[in-house]
């Protein structure tokens, strides 16, 4: 099977206190700050996973987006699911918060912040919650690199083990954030709602990414 048989079956975007799934606005909280927005998303979509509140903002955003896309992979064995994520700020948001706990005049390093000072921790959190055991990768890139993203996803899907890839852009620094995650999977005749499906191409990845960039 080559990459022309792969489809982008579902997309979740979180930006500017709004949440979209497949282009449909699901949540819009214009009057609250980012932290309150993250709390509202939890109560709306997660409900009973207290560990969420111990996570950094990058992981919280990943957990929310994964939840909204999870019906795409709930019937697939975790070893057949891969995750490929990308951002530009790495874990700088949490790195800065941790740095505040190691200032010479106030040196009390926070263990709970320290464990999130790597960008790929969000991948681990998603894997734990959804029991995903496949290949994972996290790339740091100044801009969304649709060619790299396409090549990595295609490569992973060309592997017979992987049936589905959870992928996309997830970036946060202070109160600025942009999450654009999607599911790419092998096409098959069981899919019924063909209108919602987008062909997996470099151009479509770029289009999907750019569509919400300036909201």
């Amino acid at each position, binding site marked *: 099977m080559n990459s022309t048989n792969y489809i982008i079956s579902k997309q979740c975007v979180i930006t500017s206190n709004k949440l979209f799934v497949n282009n449909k606005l699901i949540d819009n909280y214009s009057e609250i700050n980012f932290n309150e927005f993250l*709390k509202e998303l939890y109560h709306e979509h997660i409900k009973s996973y*207290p560990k*969420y*509140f*111990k996570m950094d903002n990058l992981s919280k955003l990943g957990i929310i987006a994964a939840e909204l896309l999870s019906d795409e992979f709930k019937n697939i064995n975790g070893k057949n699911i891969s995750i490929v994520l990308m951002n530009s700020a790495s874990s700088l948001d949490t790195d800065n918060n941790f740095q505040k706990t190691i200032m010479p005049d106030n040196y*009390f*390093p*926070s*263990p*709970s912040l320290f464990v999130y000072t790597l960008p790929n921790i969000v991948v681990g959190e998603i894997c734990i919650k959804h029991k995903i055991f496949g290949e994972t990768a996290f790339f740091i890139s100044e801009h969304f690199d649709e060619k790299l993203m396409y090549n990595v996803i295609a490569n992973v899907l060309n592997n017979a083990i992987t049936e589905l890839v959870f992928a996309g852009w997830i970036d946060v620094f202070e109160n600025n954030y942009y999450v654009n995650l999607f599911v790419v999977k092998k096409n098959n005749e069981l899919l019924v709602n063909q209108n919602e499906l987008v062909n997996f191409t470099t151009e479509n990845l770029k289009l999907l990414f750019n569509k919400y960039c300036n909201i």
Partner: protein
Amino acid sequence: MDELVEKLKNEIIQALNLEDIKPEDIDPTAPLFIEGLGLDSIDALELIVLIEKKYGIKIESAEDGKKVLYSVNTMAEFIHKNKK
């Protein structure tokens, strides 16, 4: 001592981001780990930092840590006994 226990409950909730848990939900005699609040190893480290930061007391060994962090009451007793 009761005052210190209540203060500690609030500090624990804040330090460990225990959303939706109120001070009155915490039984001061209940184990903090596995049962009770179900805290984990990172929470234990965070509590050690809390005691040092807020009360200026260092827990010197892992063995002491186990005893001190057993419950809110044992934390309060340790702080009461060692506060400078």
